[in-house]
């Protein structure tokens, strides 16, 4: 199960992901990101401190926005990843392509 909440902080839209992302619910993550993009967000922070699991379906959602975000100067930073979840990004080298920071403070700094 995945729960997505969002709030605004220092001009950044923060999406808080709690639970697990797999092929059954990755569309919910996609919808949440798409929603903040449509609202015109230029800084998107993804709080993953409550995320216990991500499969390729979830990784694919993040990847699918990278080109668009670069073209439109939208900054997306993921923070608070548990080590076991970070390792999944790391296996594919996605930690080199997506901005990942340990804490929210560091994510807000960029």
């Amino acid at each position, binding site marked *: *199960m995945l729960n997505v909440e969002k709030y605004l902080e220092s001009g950044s839209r923060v999406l808080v992901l709690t639970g*697990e992302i*797999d*092929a*059954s619910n*990755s569309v919910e993550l*996609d919808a949440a990101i798409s929603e903040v993009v449509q609202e015109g967000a230029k800084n998107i922070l993804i709080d993953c401190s409550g995320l216990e*699991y991500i*499969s*390729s*379906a979830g*990784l*694919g*959602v993040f*990847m*699918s926005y*990278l*080109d*668009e975000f670069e073209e439109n100067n939208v900054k997306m930073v993921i923070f608070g990843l548990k*080590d*076991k*979840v970070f*390792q*999944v990004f790391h*296996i*594919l*080298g*996605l930690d080199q*392509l997506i901005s990942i920071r340990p804490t929210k403070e560091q994510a807000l700094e960029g």
Partner: protein
Amino acid sequence: MNSQLRLYCDTSQLSELRQFLEEILDETTLSEIEQHQVILAVEEVCANLIIHSHDCNSKEFIDLNVISTQSLVVFEILDFGKGFNILEYQEPEISQVIKSKRKGGLGIMLVKRIMDKIEFESLGNKNICRLFKILKSK
């Protein structure tokens, strides 16, 4: 030890699969991070079959058989129908995944990097994919 799970082809079954695998892997020498990765790899293969080989038809099923010894865990994933030969699958480049904006293509890449050995065999309309994870001794 030998454990079996029948998964009906509905992605909502994936959380049950993770729970089943967690209980088995908890008894092995794999670290928490390794267990997490092995669960992910098995789920990726099953999700792939559920979605692409069985079009999420919940009347169809795949069978998972887990054989665990002191030195090895083997995950035998069996299904009937159009087979998906994981060994013949050409992995996309990560840059292509980004460019095409397609949300798939990463799963099999993960499986190949996490597992120690992968086998695939097709007998008539029965397909078996075997994933092997070597266990380090304590």
